[in-house]
């Protein structure tokens, strides 16, 4: 039987991070106006807002918008593995309602979820670059805490064992 590998966890995270970074809309929503910033400054600011681990309540209090995500492999079959991407798109309550973007609807967290969907699901090249077939949006739940509001998106894709 083929040996199991968990390399997808890291590989998918690199794919996701790069795809989100390449989206000018997401960068603008997370960082605001980046005119005049160097590429490395934009990268480091982006890395402060996009984390490849899940959000822990009360560990962050900055008035910003964040993306937290992780890749898990809940089921390993004999030939394939089920991979799941869990993504928290959360926004501080103080800036939740002060963002408007043409073509998008709802508050800042809602807009962000649509942008992420565009990048990971609606872009055929990107959605095909994960496992076997395309990355699929499985569910969207809401997230609510004392300071942050947002949604939890879950994607899944099978890949070889």
């Amino acid at each position, binding site marked *: 039987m083929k040996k199991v590998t968990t390399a997808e966890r890291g*590989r998918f*995270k690199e794919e996701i991070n*790069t795809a989100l*970074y390449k989206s000018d809309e997401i960068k603008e929503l997370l960082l605001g106006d980046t005119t005049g910033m160097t*590429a490395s400054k934009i990268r480091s600011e982006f890395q402060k807002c996009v984390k490849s681990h899940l959000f822990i309540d009360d560990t962050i209090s900055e008035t910003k918008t964040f993306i937290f995500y992780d890749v898990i492999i809940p089921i390993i079959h004999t030939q394939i593995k089920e991979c799941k991407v869990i993504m928290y798109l959360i926004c501080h309550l103080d800036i939740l309602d002060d963002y408007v973007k043409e073509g998008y609807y709802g508050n800042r967290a809602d807009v962000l979820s649509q942008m992420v969907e565009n990048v990971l699901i609606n872009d055929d090249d990107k959605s*095909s670059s994960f496992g076997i*077939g395309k990355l699929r949006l499985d569910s969207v739940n809401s997230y609510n805490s004392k300071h942050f509001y947002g949604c939890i998106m879950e994607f899944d894709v099978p890949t070889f064992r």
Partner: protein
Amino acid sequence: MSKEWYLLKSPHSQLSGFENDALNDFSQEGFEEALDSGIAVDIELCNYDLSVCTPIKAIVQHNVDDTKLKTLSRELYLPIGTCKAGMYVKYKNRYWLIVGLVDDNAMYEKGIMVICNYLLTWQTKDKRIIQRWANVTSASQYNNGETGVKNYDVRSDQLLILTSDDDDSMLLSTGQRFIIDRRCSVYEKAFDDSVTHSTNNPLLTYRFTRADSVLYNYQDSGHYEFMVVQDEQHMNDGYYVIDGKGYWLCEEPVIKNKNMILSSKIEYESPYIYNGLEPGTFLAKFYDSEGNETDIKPQWKICCDFADQLNIKYLDNSICISSNNKKLSNKSFKLFLCADGYEDTYITITIKGFI
């Protein structure tokens, strides 16, 4: 459909059942698998002046032979289309010259390489200093290409020299003199930094007498062989420092008084290049003896076996490097900044996934 998953499988579909198809499909792959095993060694494949060196894996055989002569040559096994006669190979910290026509048997290609035992140095007519690694063997049993009545006999030796067949080697003319003497390295030990030339040491000097430019020419490759005969040391034969580097030459060189570049450095924001993102920019800076920045055209060299998979752009004194290949993630390479006559500066750059 996914772009990646089918690559985990063989690129060949084995449906016919004929051994011929299996051989066609897997013969070269089988050899490449052998290169991933313990019998393969790391070598560098170099051009005639060693300015381009590519690290690769190869199988080197005949390294445990019995006779003195056999220990001075090796068999080199490589994937088909990798090397040609006249290339140099850096193997176990020695340079070797590939001689003889390289050919393949549909599985791998084989070259014969001989040890280079001397770095031959000479000055061209336009006063450029040329250095080539050479295989020097005794040729006292051969005709030296000259006949005549000798009224005196003082020294008698002749050497056969094998080197690359580049333009500078091929244009060597009869009468060109060389210092071929291992004692040079002994003399150098006594030199301090203040020595700029020395012509006091006894030296073995040789004169170019016979060459064939077609004997070892294979149209697309080849090496060059010529014969030198020992002659008398001249007054100007000796050690000369040119642009901070010492050479043993048979003629007094024209030493140009160049502005010394004391230091150079590569400026950069990050030693990382993120796969799929914007290029990393690396800026060359040169400084004169007083620490002032000088305007020198930089020469860049990337040392790795995947340089052809990197996207490279040159912009004034900068080089912009990016990568869009996931397979290069977490690989590193060396970026060298070179300036004529001075020690190279280099940095190690790592390609990372952005996370």
